[in-house]
């Protein structure tokens, strides 16, 4: 018990030196994963593909009033097959989204935040005035603990992010390429649907030219107007979804290519820009919904 105060003072002294050393190591060695985290977070939130998959599934609902006879039989059969494929089509997006969410958590800062616990500790020590530890020591101890903790976890965290990105990139690129193909099939299906519906009005309106048909012709034209607007908005969403998937592909590839260089300003700027692009795309899709 006698040697305890001396020991404590020695510990406190060495803490002071250790703080300096550790701060240096941390500044040099700690990679900032903020850009990776933001990119992955934005990517996980992009739901354009899901919405368009649902639109693809519901094709028959929209074309149903306009098809008859043999075309209707085929349309019903197509409807059933689209309904059947729907869960598998969604699962592709869920997989990509889950990957991005996990990457965002893994690259996260808040997830592994230690400062709260450390501040509690500092105030805990301050409640013992007779210990011979003054406030300076408490602060020193608190900051070194934070630094050491951050250093231990961030080294592990960095390696984990690196492994996930490098192992994940080829598979992710394949999945995103597949999603691009699927969006193009959705778009082509939607084109045929539009032409079936708009084409119907184009033809029938031509034959409504007697005074008796005036009301019918006006209603048809008004309906056609709103249909055209609906398809214009849908087209904008296909285009934005394609851009979004391309940005995710591009962003993940950039991270993988520069995995040892993530702290460079140039790489950070590029990844940051892609994350912003994805956010803008999401806003545009939101606008094309109304």
């Amino acid at each position, binding site marked *: 018990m006698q040697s305890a105060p001396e020991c404590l003072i020695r510990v406190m002294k060495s803490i002071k030196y250790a703080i300096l050393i550790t701060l240096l190591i941390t500044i040099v060695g700690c990679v900032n994963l903020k850009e990776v985290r933001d990119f992955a977070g934005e990517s996980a939130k992009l739901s354009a593909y899901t919405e368009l998959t649902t639109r693809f599934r519901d094709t028959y609902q929209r074309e149903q009033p306009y098809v008859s006879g043999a075309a209707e039989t085929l349309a019903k059969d197509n409807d059933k097959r689209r309904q059947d494929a729907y869960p598998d089509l969604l699962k592709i997006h869920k997989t990509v989204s889950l990957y991005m969410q996990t990457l965002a958590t893994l690259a996260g800062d808040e997830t592994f935040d230690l400062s709260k616990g450390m501040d509690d*500790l500092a105030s805990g020590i301050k409640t013992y005035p007779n210990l011979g530890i003054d406030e300076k020591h408490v602060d020193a101890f608190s900051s070194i*603990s934070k630094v050491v903790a951050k250093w231990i976890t961030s080294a592990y965290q960095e390696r*984990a992010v690196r492994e*996930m990105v490098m192992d994940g990139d080829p598979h992710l690129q394949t*999945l995103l390429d597949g999603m691009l193909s699927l969006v193009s099939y959705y778009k082509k299906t939607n084109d*045929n649907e539009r*032409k079936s519906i708009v084409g119907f009005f184009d033809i029938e309106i031509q034959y409504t030219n007697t005074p008796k048909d005036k009301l019918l012709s006006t209603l048809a034209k008004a309906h056609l107007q709103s249909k055209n607007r609906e398809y214009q908005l849908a087209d904008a969403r296909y285009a934005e979804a394609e851009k979004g998937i391309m940005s995710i592909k591009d962003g993940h590839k950039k991270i993988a290519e520069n995995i040892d260089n993530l702290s460079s300003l140039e790489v950070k700027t590029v990844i940051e820009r892609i994350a912003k692009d994805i956010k803008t795309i999401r806003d545009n899709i939101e606008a094309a919904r109304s």
Partner: protein
Amino acid sequence: MALANKKQVEEMADKLTESADSIHERLMKAIRDKEIDQPNAQSIFQDEAILRQRANGLYIDAANSVITDLKQSQTSVIALVDTANKKIKRIRDITKFIDLIADLLVLASAVYAAKPSPIITALQEVKSDIEAIGGE
């Protein structure tokens, strides 16, 4: 599926769509030039609609073959997610372990000050830290 791969399926569907487009264009011209009456126009439009449904059927074939192609990649990505989640848990364990060390230091200080009440509080903190580490 008679067609070999999704590229061919898609190309075939595109061709059917193009044919339907040509029919439509010709039909609209015939209507404007009054070459055709309404029932005949409707019958030709029906053929156009059938072609579009056939094309859309082929796009579903193509989509289904993408689904099959992506199965393996999906399995691999899910495995990566599982591995990452284990690592996230490990990092959280490290932070809990650091909490324990911090509370042990408080305990040591309390013991040194020989004040019963802070000792008991500090002991409880240490106990809950150990439970947090062992509990998951």
